[in-house]
């Protein structure tokens, strides 16, 4: 054993996917210990929510997971709806499912692209970002924003689908799976990428469960747990879809699970577009100022990163007494020291990328 060196990566490093600092203890080029230091983007959203009305909190939730804003909107709205006993019209539920599956694609495009970029294949990023831009364009037509949508509101969604949107959406879901197949060949069939990804950062199923990971990180390890199927919410039971699973839980499996989830998402969107009926998109007769009864409520949905939950406590006033966001990225990142041990420094970068953290959500 040689002398150990301590290397600091971050907090602003192009390969940490945000503002994360990792303090790595190295023996030669081998990682002995990696300690993530988070909190560089801690903005105090939970504290801010205590001084906003229930509706004013929705834009704040956009800024949590900024790669998948719709999820945080939805999780928060479900929690408010449960607290205040609001029934959401069916059309709104369908729209929510459609936008959230589109969001999953947009978010995974980011994740797969950065897996490519981390392994040196920047061209994969070009492909995936072009796909992401299609989704972003659809969202822009829907609510006017490219990133922070503020679209899902307590009681429904803010506005109905615009004219011609359904056709555009169908066109997207038709062209998307072939591109995924191409990326599958291009990136995951590539010898270099396979060598960089296979066998790197293996997360065992026991650790995946014990450390509370969820989403593609847990499913990459073969943990068959997806809230859309196992704790069904909204209209998900009406759709027919598969949950892709990894085999050994290395970076390759995690990235590949993301890729197949995109294809499954396209299936769900198509079914939802077939089933959706005209109707109202917002619950009738809601008061302008929601003031739910005192009590607490928790609800969670399957976001692109895992189970995203929002815990709300109300004291009967028009503002939440306490809001807690159970962030999947936070729990997923906690396994980093476990995965990095024994790998080289360059693999550490790939491992961080494969956990796909979004620091707005990790730090809140």
């Amino acid at each position, binding site marked *: 054993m040689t002398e150990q060196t301590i290397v600091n990566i971050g*907090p*602003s*490093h*192009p390969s940490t996917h*945000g*503002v994360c600092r990792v303090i790595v203890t190295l023996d030669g080029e081998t990682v002995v210990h990696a300690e993530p230091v988070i*909190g*560089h*983007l*801690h*903005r*105090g*959203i939970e*504290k*801010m929510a*205590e*001084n906003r009305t229930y509706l004013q909190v929705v*834009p*704040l939730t*956009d*800024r949590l997971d*900024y*790669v998948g804003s719709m999820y945080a909107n939805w999780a928060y709205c479900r929690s408010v709806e449960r607290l205040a006993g609001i029934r959401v019209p069916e059309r709104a539920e369908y729209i929510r499912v459609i936008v959230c599956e589109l969001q999953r694609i947009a978010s995974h495009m*980011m994740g797969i692209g950065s897996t490519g970029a981390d392994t040196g294949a920047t061209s994969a*990023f*070009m492909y995936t*970002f*072009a796909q*992401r*831009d299609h989704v*972003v364009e659809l969202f822009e037509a829907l609510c006017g924003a*490219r*990133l*922070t949508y503020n679209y899902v509101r307590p009681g429904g969604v803010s506005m109905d689908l615009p004219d011609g949107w359904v056709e555009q959406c169908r066109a997207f879901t038709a062209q998307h799976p072939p591109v995924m197949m191409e990326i599958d060949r291009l990136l995951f069939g590539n010898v270099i990428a396979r060598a960089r990804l296979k066998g790197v950062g293996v997360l065992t199923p026991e650790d995946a469960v014990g450390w509370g990971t969820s989403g593609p990180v847990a499913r990459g390890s073969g943990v068959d747990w997806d809230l859309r199927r196992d704790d069904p919410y909204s209209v998900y039971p009406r759709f027919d879809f598969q949950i892709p699973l990894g085999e050994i839980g290395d970076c390759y499996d995690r990235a590949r699970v993301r890729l197949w989830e995109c294809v499954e998402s396209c299936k769900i969107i198509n079914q939802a577009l077939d089933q959706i009926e005209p109707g109202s998109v917002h619950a009738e007769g809601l008061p302008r100022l929601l003031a739910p009864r005192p009590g607490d409520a928790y609800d969670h949905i399957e976001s692109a990163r895992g189970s995203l939950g929002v815990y709300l406590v109300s004291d009967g006033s028009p503002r939440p007494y306490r809001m807690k966001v159970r962030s999947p990225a936070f729990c997923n990142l906690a396994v980093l020291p476990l995965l990095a041990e024994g790998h080289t420094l360059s693999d550490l970068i790939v491992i961080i990328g494969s956990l796909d953290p979004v*620091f*707005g959500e990790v730090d809140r």
Partner: protein
Amino acid sequence: MAFVDDLGAALDKTPGGGIILTSLDAVMDWSRGKSLWMMPMGTACCAMELIAASFSRFDFDRHGSIPRPDPRHCDVMVVAGTITRKMAPAVKRLYEQMPDPKWVIAMGNCAVSGGIFYYDTYSVIRGVDEFLPVDVYISGCPPRPEALQDAILRLREQVATDSIVPGRDRQLNTILPTPGSPRKGDSAAADGDDS
């Protein structure tokens, strides 16, 4: 840049050197303005638009602005996103590592003023101009990639006034647009202002 700086200072003192200096400034500013390499200081949501700006769709490279992760290669720092009190020392340090001359673009409401995180929060710094000299502000939450491109073009106009002699400004015969003043080519508005 030491050589250029010395040369500029020497020319400034020489009688008649100003003529050479002006031409030299013009060449320097032209070359600097056409290759503003940027340091992407993306911390939060705005970073997504910063990435989108440099990828397939909006293709930033055509303006000569290449994102470089190393501060020592960069001319302009694009601060995109919320700066918290834990992050601020790192941003300042990176800024100090950039070689002169350097510029800062504050992208997004958070970097301009704290934006949506202005009230009630204990950890957010209300605008990067609390600790960095900002040249161009872009509003929006997040701004569109086009807005970032516009900012780079505006920054070019500003770069064109710089001189290689520290503390000296080059006179330009164009008036830089400021938020309140009409933009170039906006003749109708300009006429209205004059009357």
